[in-house]
């Protein structure tokens, strides 16, 4: 084995954590939708991708400020989430396979639609904050630092929303016990719509930030979906706090194991970790009973 310097390792850990935090946004949205509607939103990756594409067209083609473009894109994707919930998921709620298949159909439809409409070639959003800063003795791009900061802020905001505000508490209640929450006058339709809107908005933000750091292509959604699912699986299924922990674990795996043991070990590690966790604690790290 060749020697890996401490700087390289630290650099790699920070990079892994930054990308991990963006994927946490994806995982939080997925997890929120899953716990409220019991639907795995496979098209979530496509919402993420569309969010990035809208920002690209607004900021690069139309010349609008990047952060304003993110706001517009997030609002549009929240509306898309509402529409998807109303017309595709609400009629099928309570079933297992049909909503899953519809979500898969939407995934294929949106992905190939974007391929046909915007082309298969990768596009890139110019960096919104060029330059780099020094953190813990390693250099990190300002845009990456800002992206991680935004992600952490949004995750915190989501927690505050769920713990303090009336609608957030209603969402938490609906995710814990559906029937009991209905008895308390919490409408399930409204909760599903809210979860889809919030989840889609988070995904769109993640997509736009990732688009500014890496590149955009019509298939970026699948990668993000898989990363989001790995985070959910690592952190314990059905728990939002678990999602954050899962994101950090994934970031560390991508940072440490990738550099020290290579890509094969880095891709196997999450699976092995999950298998071990499930043997010891069948609910997952922070999950609840199934």
């Amino acid at each position, binding site marked *: 084995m060749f020697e890996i310097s401490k700087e390289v390792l630290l650099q790699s850990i920070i990079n892994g954590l930054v990308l991990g935090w963006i994927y946490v946004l994806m995982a939080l949205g997925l997890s929120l939708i899953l716990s409220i509607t019991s639907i795995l939103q496979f098209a979530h990756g496509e919402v993420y991708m569309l969010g990035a594409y809208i920002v690209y067209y607004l900021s690069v083609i139309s010349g609008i400020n990047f952060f304003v473009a993110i706001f517009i894109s997030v609002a549009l994707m929240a509306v898309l989430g509402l529409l998807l919930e109303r017309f595709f998921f609400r009629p099928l709620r309570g079933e297992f396979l*049909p909503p899953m298949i519809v979500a898969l159909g939407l995934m294929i439809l949106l992905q190939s639609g974007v391929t046909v409409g915007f082309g298969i070639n990768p596009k890139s959003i110019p960096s919104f904050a060029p330059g780099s800063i020094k953190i813990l003795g390693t250099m990190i791009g300002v845009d990456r630092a800002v992206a991680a900061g935004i992600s952490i802020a949004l995750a915190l905001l989501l927690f505050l929303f769920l713990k303090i505000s009336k609608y957030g508490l209603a969402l938490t209640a609906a995710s814990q016990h559906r029937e009991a929450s209905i008895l308390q006058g919490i409408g399930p339709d409204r909760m599903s719509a809210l979860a889809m809107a919030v989840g889609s908005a988070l995904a769109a933000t993640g997509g736009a930030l990732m688009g500014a750091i890496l590149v955009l292509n019509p298939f970026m959604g699948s990668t993000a979906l*898989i990363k989001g699912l790995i985070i959910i699986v690592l952190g314990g299924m059905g728990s939002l706090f678990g999602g954050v922990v899962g994101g950090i674990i994934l970031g560390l795996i991508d940072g440490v194991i990738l550099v020290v043991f290579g890509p094969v070990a880095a891709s196997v590690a999450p699976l092995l970790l999950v298998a071990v966790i499930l043997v010891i604690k069948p609910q997952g790290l922070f999950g609840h009973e199934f």
Partner: protein
Amino acid sequence: MSSKKQAIDRYSVISFIICLFIAPLFLRNNYWLHVLGITGINIILVSSLHTIRSTGEISMGTGGFMALGAYTSALLAMKVGLCFWLTMLLAGILCAAVAVILGYPFMRTKGIYFSILTLVTGEVFRLIAWYYRSLTGGSVGLSGIPGPNPITIPGITTIMFDTKVDYYYLILVIALLSLLILFRLQTSQVGFVWSTIRETDHLAASVGINVLQYKIFAFGIGSFFTGIAGALFAHFMHLLAADATGKFGMTTSIYILIYMVFGGEGKFMGPVIGAFILTILPETFRAMKEYQPVIFGALVILIVFFIPQGIIALPDRILLWRRRKKTS
């Protein structure tokens, strides 16, 4: 009525199989034989998924297990020099063993969480094939996989595998055998236990059925045939690559699941018909290749909303609709 209907079903299946056997006499076109070969592989995949589904769970790792089978068989044939028949079997057994080992922790979860776990597993298998360059060729791929060894039937003839027609018959025979085994399993005692678990797993556990064991068994059997299909694919294509948009990616797992639902999971033949139609149909619209997935996605959504029982329920539905029209 019921026995008469069963007889009709049986005759239609038998006549269809005969049609498949004589098809190469009329299809002189290698392209269509290739498509039919892929169809056969897809049919094995969809039936093994249906077997796992009969316990109520949905595996989304079809692509990954297929990759495991394909690379195992190809590497054993190329690096060790074993014959195809043995490598195919070993590929299936390895897939089953991996499924049983992973099934032990995974089957503690159920429903959507099992699907997520298998999806992640499938993707991990593909990534191993993608990154393990020294063994699998990585992004370049693995080429020059030998075809099956010739079979000598003493005194009669030797079957060589050098034309598309031979491969077609090979896949046809293996697909039919797999279907027969899976059909017998689903209609056997074990199959009834599986459907009991699917209906009410708590009740099944309360009458002394070891739910975990039966579920793991179904997962193992399904993965065995997925591995067989992967091995067939490897020796049929002579070339393997594990890129994200290729045959081993998430796309295959999704498409196989969609074939199953499109055909109708209520009956054994439903998924088979679904795979057959949805593999052949897009090939006839090759001119609009770009728009194919768009149409496919839209079709899937329409099917779920309008014929949730799948294509196989279509005749019954039409009958019902006509009867209702007559009475009103």
